[in-house]
């Protein structure tokens, strides 16, 4: 029956020529995946931080969009505005006059038993606006009517994904865009500034300081949080970045506390404040809700708006809203009758096949200074078989195209927002993450290069250990241990016992241990860099995604030489972005400090492990060559000295040669510079003390152990001075009555 075919399908037909070709679709899909990875939406998948696989993008993208004609969208947008307005009135009433409770429309006993109703807000001055953002899931039934599946009011997600998906789809489907016989597809790029304005509207503070408040990389929608922070230009902060003092919320930054006016809350309300009764054990900011109740900081959305989502209360809302605003909502709920009729199917590209599937569409509204704006787009979510429409499994997401340019959000030209320059302030956690990322990239690099160098040497020269009288293998084991900064215990014992014949005295086993360390360092790098993604250039995400992929392979087996090379190359690419494309603020400075100090430690370790002892001259030469190679100084050394390798000269080259960027003196010199820029006299003094000790090392290489210890102490000093991070809140024991 043709009547049953949806408008959606009908509207898609003009594109049918392009969108029904499976080859084209497959190419579009692959291209979309590649671009999402490049935008940072994919690399999280491969990073288990605490044994659990980290959540990444909730679902992949279906290259066939949901297409809605302009008139249909206008009707839906009016419904969104109406619902958002009604729900705003309702939530203000539930925490204010409670007329709907007094009239009995909402039973008080039902309301207070909701775990999302915050009695602590009753009677306090509510925020100027409870709902700054709002999302609603709608679905079109087979009979052509639209129904509301659910309202999202607590911390509505999807707006950032919609912007992200569109940025990908614009490029993937550039062939299709702009050629619709109905006119062009509405643009949603202006919606970011609508959101920014809406967030500024929830406070009376002029030029408000706004942060995106996230639960961190473990949150399923972290990719979206990070994308929004970047898109809006706000700090992305976690609970440990924040502190409450004098009934206000403050951002912990390097050096001082910065006041926050608005927290764009991407955190479930039960995870906001551990002092509160209903809080769960997921941390939070102690005292935050006290500050909110006092008006010292505004949350968007207001804390307590989650009550609107409570399924036990939802049935009461239509009457309650009607009582408050005097009209009945135009869209009916997705009830049993709707379920019986069923959701209309939409063309979809799933598992490499063109098919039809039911889709739920999430629409977004924001309440700005000039009223409610509805995004002319949204998130389409493909339902799997048997899926509940409000809890779809992660099957595929669809971009939502609204036809008709007049519906695009105009670029807002209202009064300019007062600009607050937060660029100087660096959240302490971000500085710490930079420091850790810097250390990890350096450590991963030296471990990868050591594995590659030793491995190549072993392949080229299978008899090396025998030729050196069994001296080479144990030294290489020592080298691996040193660069890994781990005992690699099994390997060491085997090496000392010399049990494993043909393994160069345990080198193979030590390399196995080293690949585990390499995997661990890559994990730290990707995890730390992910949490500061908004500071890094866009391309960094692509490199990180590749490194995450390599790390996943590493976890399964010992690193091969090719893979060690690949890793070293990707790390070098990351290096380049770090050096050339990252803004050199204080955040970057801490990252670079971590890198330089870790490099200094690595060089010291290399010299320590490879310096001449009582070996034959041949063995000494081989060891020194390895040292130079791992430090990427071999070619430079040869070009400079054009001699056979002479240990003292070579050690001098990597220790105190100013022209060698990979030398210890260069690394500590940079660290000294950073300490001076940060205005940190202790750091400058520590660096100078190390620099003063270097010239003696080329004369007496044994002195390197003392230098290495000093570098390690420098690293600890940075940590202690700048990142003494607050630990998790500990609950005070509850007081119990009656001799409890």
């Amino acid at each position, binding site marked *: 029956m043709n009547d049953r075919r949806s408008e959606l399908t009908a509207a898609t037909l003009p594109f049918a020529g392009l969108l029904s070709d499976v080859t084209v679709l497959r190419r579009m899909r692959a291209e979309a995946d590649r671009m999402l990875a490049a935008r940072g939406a994919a690399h999280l998948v491969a990073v288990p931080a605490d044994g659990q696989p980290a959540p990444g993008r909730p679902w992949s993208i279906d290259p066939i969009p949901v297409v809605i004609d302009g008139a249909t969208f206008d009707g839906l947008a009016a419904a969104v505005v109406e619902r958002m307005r009604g729900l705003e009135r309702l939530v203000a009433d539930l925490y204010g006059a409670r007329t709907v409770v007094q009239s009995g429309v909402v039973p008080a*006993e039902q309301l*207070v038993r909701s775990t999302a109703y915050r009695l602590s807000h009753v009677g306090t001055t509510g925020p100027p606006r409870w709902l700054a953002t709002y999302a609603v899931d709608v679905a079109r039934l087979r009979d052509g009517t639209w129904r509301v599946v659910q309202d999202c009011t607590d911390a509505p997600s999807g707006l950032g994904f919609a912007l992200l998906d569109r940025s990908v789809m614009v490029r993937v489907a550039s062939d299709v865009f702009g050629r619709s016989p109905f006119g062009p597809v509405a643009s949603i790029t202006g919606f970011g500034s609508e959101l920014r304005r809406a967030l500024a509207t929830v406070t009376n503070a002029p030029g408000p300081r706004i942060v995106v408040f996230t639960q961190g990389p473990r949150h399923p929608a972290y990719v979206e949080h990070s994308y929004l922070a970047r898109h809006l230009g706000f700090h992305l902060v976690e609970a440990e970045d924040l502190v409450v003092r004098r009934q206000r919320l403050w951002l912990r930054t390097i050096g001082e506390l910065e006041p926050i006016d608005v927290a764009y809350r991407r955190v479930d309300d039960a995870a906001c404040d551990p*002092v509160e*009764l209903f809080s769960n054990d997921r941390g939070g900011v102690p005292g935050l809700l006290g500050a909110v109740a006092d008006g010292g900081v505004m949350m968007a959305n207001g804390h307590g708006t989650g009550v609107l989502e409570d399924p036990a209360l939802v049935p009461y809302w239509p009457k309650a809203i009607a009582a408050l605003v005097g009209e009945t909502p135009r869209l009916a709920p997705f009830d049993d009758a709707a379920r019986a009729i069923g959701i209309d199917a939409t063309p979809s590209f799933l598992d490499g096949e063109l098919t039809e599937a039911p889709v739920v569409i999430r629409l977004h509204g924001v309440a700005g200074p000039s009223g409610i704006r509805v995004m002319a787009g949204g998130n389409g979510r493909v339902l799997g078989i048997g899926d509940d429409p409000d809890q779809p499994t992660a099957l595929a997401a669809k971009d939502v195209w609204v036809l008709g340019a007049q519906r695009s959000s105009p670029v807002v030209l209202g009064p300019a927002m007062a600009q607050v320059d937060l660029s100087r302030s660096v959240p302490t956690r971000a500085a710490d993450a930079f420091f850790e990322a810097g250390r990890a990239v350096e450590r991963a690099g030296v471990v990868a290069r050591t594995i590659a160098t030793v491995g190549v040497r072993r392949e080229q020269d299978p008899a090396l250990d025998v030729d050196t009288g069994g001296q080479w293998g144990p030294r290489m084991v020592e080298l691996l241990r040193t660069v890994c900064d781990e005992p690699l215990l099994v390997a060491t014992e085997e090496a000392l016992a010399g049990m494993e014949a043909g393994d160069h005295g345990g080198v193979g086993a030590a390399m196995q241990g080293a690949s585990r360390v390499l995997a661990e360092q890559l994990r730290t790098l990707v995890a730390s860099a992910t949490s500061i993604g908004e500071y890094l250039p866009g391309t960094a995400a692509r490199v990180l995604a590749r490194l995450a992929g390599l790390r996943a392979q590493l976890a399964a087996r010992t690193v091969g030489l090719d893979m060690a090379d690949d890793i070293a190359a990707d790390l070098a690419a990351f290096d380049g972005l770090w050096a050339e494309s990252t803004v050199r603020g204080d955040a970057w400075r801490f990252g670079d400090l971590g890198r330089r100090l870790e490099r200094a430690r690595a060089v010291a370790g290399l010299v320590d492990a490879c310096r001449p002892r009582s070996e034959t001259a041949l063995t000494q030469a081989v060891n020194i060559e390895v040292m130079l190679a791992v430090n990427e100084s071999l070619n430079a050394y040869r070009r400079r000295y054009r001699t056979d390798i002479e240990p003292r000269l070579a050690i001098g080259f990597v220790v105190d040669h100013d022209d060698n960027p990979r030398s210890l003196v260069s690394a500590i010199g940079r660290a000294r510079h950073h300490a001076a820029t940060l205005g940190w006299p202790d750091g400058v003094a520590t660096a100078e003390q190390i620099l003063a000790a270097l010239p003696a090392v080329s004369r007496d290489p044994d002195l390197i152990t003392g230098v290495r210890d000093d570098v390690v102490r420098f690293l600890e000093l940075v940590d202690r001075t700048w990142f003494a991070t607050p630990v998790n809140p500990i609950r005070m024991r*509850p007081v119990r009555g009656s001799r409890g």
Partner: protein
Amino acid sequence: MTKGDPTPVIRYSVRHRTTYQYSAQMSDGYTLTRLIPRTTDHQRVARCELHVDPEPDERRSQVDAFGNHVVQLGLHHSHAHLELAAHSDVDVTVPAEPGPGPRWRHVAAQAASLTGAAALDVRPFLAASTYVNLDAVGDGLRRLVYELAGRPAPTIDDDVGVVDLTRRLCAGIHSSFDYDPSATDISTPLATVIAERHGVCQDFAHVAIGGLRAIGIPARYVSGYLETARPDGPDALVGADASHAWASVWVPGGGWVDFDPTNDLLPTVRHVTVAWGRDYGDVAPVRGVVIGPPTAQTLSVAVESRRVTADRPPPGDW
């Protein structure tokens, strides 16, 4: 007392000290306390001071949704202990012995259909709450009420007055539950308390309010103090040397009637009220977090509530 005497007013002087000791230095502490007695129909707070050691950096007073006094403390410097000492003088009028009360069925029907301000004041106390999870234990509680308050069990006639019913329930809990501080802790579910029939005042108060709510009668949780035994008296009551908890039942036309299932008292005669709410969670005397290295914490509580001779006559309007 004989008819015609003025309503007696007793002044209690209450000292309540709560001390936390940590095994390590904490750098920060955020605490919400409900230690300052509220005004009620039967009591007036003449004086109350909350002494905090070490001196907090921040201190704010507010009133919660139930009208209880909340003091919020912020301690933003290194500390290894926290002592909260509340000293109050409270004038209490002993409530009159209530009658049987309106028929309980009628009370249940009336409560569920209250509108206006009464809906806000009373209906919240019909609901399941954190510590009184009627979804899980409602049936068990209903059976318990019929068992303890039935005459003969398990029958409660529709015309039994709500106060009489409560009196029976109060006596029933007192006689069939064992007072045993070692048997339960703050996280013991109500289902366990009901099944094993032991606990402390808090547990008995939750059983009482849960039982009443399970049959549709509004009931609230009350925290406060009991008079400490006079050295010469044989009348020591359970729970006097710590903070105490009891319950209160809604009686249309008569307000709320407090009763103490731990000591089988209705009305309560030697009690000083601090706060009330839906259950323990709403009135916890101290709740908070500290920030610092992992720590062991010890908690000690001392309470003394004594009658004093009023140094001046009660105000005229009493």
